């Protein structure tokens, strides 16, 4: 129930940000729309700890800047590989262990891996992530371990210990 109110509040803030016209009628429509959508979302059964991850609190936003920094570094590396006339790639498929317990945590970890160019999550089986990497250097494991610990922290508030 708390999550339904949370979703409604988030949606209403989203509406106010998009709208830009703050007449009583439009705000009323906004409230009505949010109510309708919360009802539909509850019928769809998407209002749970995965669909409305309020339990993460602000931790995700503390993780986000670090992720952007990693994305930047990885982008520069991949750009250098692409612009190299010899195209020095050595693609490999490998496996990582995820230390997150919930599906939400694993999704954040897998998406973070995919967002940093050079590594792509191709499959998730339980705690096992199948990764396709562009060069061997991309999977030397240091960044991934760091990322795994940070995502575990986002998920539960304590650093994972795998």
């Amino acid at each position, binding site marked *: 129930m708390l999550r339904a109110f949370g979703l409604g509040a988030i949606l209403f803030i989203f509406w106010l*940000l998009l709208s830009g016209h703050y007449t009583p009628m439009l705000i009323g429509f906004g409230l009505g729309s949010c109510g309708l959508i919360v009802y539909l979302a509850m019928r769809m059964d998407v209002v749970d700890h995965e669909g409305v991850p309020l339990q993460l609190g602000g931790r995700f936003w503390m993780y986000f800047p670090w992720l952007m920094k990693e994305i930047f570094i990885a982008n520069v590396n*991949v750009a250098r590989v*692409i612009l190299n006339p010899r195209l*020095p790639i*050595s693609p490999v*498929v490998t496996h990582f262990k995820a230390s997150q317990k919930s599906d939400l945590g694993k999704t954040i970890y897998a998406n973070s891996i*995919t967002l940093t160019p050079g590594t792509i999550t191709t499959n998730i089986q339980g705690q096992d992530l199948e990764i396709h990497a562009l060069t061997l250097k991309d999977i030397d494991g240091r960044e991934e371990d760091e990322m795994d610990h940070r995502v575990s922290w986002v998920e539960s508030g304590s650093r994972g210990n795998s």
Partner: protein
Amino acid sequence: MIDLILEVLSWISIIGGIFFMMVGTIGIVRMPDVYTRLHAAGMTDTMGAGLLLLGMCFQAGLTLVLVRLVLIYAFLLFTSPISTHALASAALSGGVEPYTVPADRSGKLNSLNGEQNS
């Protein structure tokens, strides 16, 4: 003065965005198979779009236009890994074999990667 700085920053961002976007697209054309092309495509989604939209943010100033630009980027950041993952796993289950470096070249390449590491 502030206007000038914002103008210069926006120029730099937009040029950087177009650079990364072009490099990513060149990668899509150059790479040998679909999985390696996905790495290049990810570049255009994260850095290319990000810097280009950041440049437009500097032009927009603190208005609702800025909010929309941020929303577009948030949406791209959210959906790009999902569709990349869907594409990669669909290609795997569709039976597309990942490209591996031919044996006579791999020794040289491994040493090259070793050089970059050090």
